[in-house]
């Protein structure tokens, strides 16, 4: 039995398989990122990096809720200059596609962090827009204008492809996707975490230091899937060539296939690393292959967007 071809291409960057490591999970050092790649990921996304170092919130920063996680880490990271060393180390040891996740509180910060990460040698950037705009209570990704400005600012300064990661904490995610596309993003990833809360009833108080946090993992999968489908329908309607990367609760091959059928060209896995261990990447690619063999598909392209027609009807 021939193995189906799981390789994909996003904005001209080739990946050996469509199952990538999501931002924020383990991606702090070269050895950890290499370990994830060796475990079978098609590519890796780093921890979200800012211009200057951040300690993040003091613990408690995570809480398990069913199969999901609410996290309020507070975007801790060593800052771009320090993190460059890890990227350079990784590039020396492997040829794995590295996507640098970046964030900032202003256009200027986004721009400068983007330039820094590009010079470090990442193959692509993923813009984490789930951070507050410094002059507003809104997250950058909750406002189409902020989104447009940030994506445009980065687009003007870097040559490598840009993925814009969207937050689901909006009324209409398509409106935000539209802004990112108009500003020149090469791809879109959806979704970031869903704003959530855990109350410790023994104390009658929120448990996380930051009070609210972001829910990730299997509980958000149906929401993530719906967002990917909505964005994919919009992209299809306008004939845009904008690949979508699905993220949110993907745990196994069936989940990944749902996302491909909803219009995603690739998926990211994060929380499932806790649920299934680091072999989750290899497991998911094998499960995808099994499905494809059973159904007679030989390439991922054959599945992408398969369910969209039925959604339009």
């Amino acid at each position, binding site marked *: 039995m021939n193995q189906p071809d799981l390789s994909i291409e996003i904005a001209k960057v080739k990946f050996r398989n469509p199952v990538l490591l999501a931002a924020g*999970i383990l991606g*702090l050092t070269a050895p950890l990122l290499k370990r994830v790649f060796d475990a079978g990921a098609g590519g890796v996304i780093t921890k979200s990096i800012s211009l200057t170092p951040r*300690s993040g919130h003091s613990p*408690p920063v995570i809480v398990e809720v069913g199969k999901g996680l609410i*996290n309020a880490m507070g975007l*801790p990271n060593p*800052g771009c200059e320090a993190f460059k*060393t890890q990227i350079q180390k990784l590039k020396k040891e492997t040829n794995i596609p590295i996507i640098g996740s970046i964030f900032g509180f202003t256009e200027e910060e986004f721009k400068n962090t983007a330039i820094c990460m590009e010079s470090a040698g990442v193959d692509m950037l993923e813009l984490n827009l789930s951070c507050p705009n410094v002059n507003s209570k809104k997250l950058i990704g909750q406002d189409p204008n902020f989104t447009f400005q940030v994506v445009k600012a980065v687009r003007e300064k870097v040559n490598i492809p840009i993925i814009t990661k969207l937050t689901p904490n909006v009324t209409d995610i398509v409106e935000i996707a539209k802004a990112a596309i108009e500003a020149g993003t090469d791809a879109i990833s959806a979704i970031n975490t869903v704003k959530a809360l855990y109350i410790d009833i023994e*104390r009658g108080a929120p448990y996380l230091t930051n009070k609210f946090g972001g829910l990730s993992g299997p509980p958000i999968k149906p929401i993530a899937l719906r967002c990917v489908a909505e964005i994919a329908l919009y992209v299809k309607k306008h004939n845009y060539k904008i690949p979508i990367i699905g993220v949110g609760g993907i745990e196994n091959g069936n989940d990944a296939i749902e996302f491909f059928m909803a219009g995603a060209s690739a998926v990211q896995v994060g929380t499932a690393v806790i649920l299934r261990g680091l072999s989750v990447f290899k497991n998911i690619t094998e499960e995808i292959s099994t499905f494809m063999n059973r159904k007679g598909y030989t390439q991922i392209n054959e599945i992408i967007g398969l369910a969209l027609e039925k959604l339009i009807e």
Partner: protein
Amino acid sequence: MCFLKHSKIVNIIQEAEGIKTFWLECRELAQKAIPGQFVMVYVYDHLAPNQKPEEVPMSLSGINRQEGSISITVAERGPTTKAIHQHKCGDYLGIRGPYGHGFEPVQGKKIAVIGGGVGMTPLLAFIENSELYSNDGEITVFVGAPTKNRLLFCNQLEKKGISMIIATEDGSAGIQGNIVDVFLNKLRENEKYDEIITCGPEPMIKKLVEIADKYEIPIQASLERWIKCGIGICGHCAINGLRVCVEGPVFKGETLKQLSDFGGFALDETGAYKSIHEVFNSSKNNKNK
């Protein structure tokens, strides 16, 4: 499975100046936990005005499966551990866990348990938990500390009739000198050991791993890194490609020999890759909470 268990303090023991052991009622955890594992301790009572609740990682110093209780041994160093020290029997601490890879059962008979300072904490759990070694196992405990009043658990071990060798840097108790040198001298005097179990400052562990390698003795060591999530997802506790909160804190000597970060490098609170000295000896670090 309950993520966070508010556990009642049922016993408090003053071990040394500024160091107390707290026994907590935690039935489920007591059944599951293995020596070498740790818990995340959520402290929200006895806080100073404007002090926020905080969660800190602590090794288990005791596991009592019959009573359904576990213990942590806490040195008062900063605001959070100070708050813990104000707790009385009947007060509560939030516990989640147990986490990490604990000690594995020891194959041989003659076991050297070597502890420096508060490194004795997980070692006490190992010693008291005879599931990990054979009935005719002979344990010799090497206890080291800078000075007499920083020695831990000696009275307890003495009462149990466990063979003990004490060393203090200033000579205020036991042999004057470094516990690793004392152990090395024993090896040079032709004492044979089947396994070494250790915990303490990383330079101490590094020396022991080198000695173990030279004398071909298997060694299990409990390491420490900056822990944030405790469940293997954030990467802050990384040592090379391994996570102290999942693949550790207990590592075998064979593994440690391959890790270039061992004895040298760690990540700080921001996740920046720095020398161990910078991360653990700065005034603001995970050990001074």
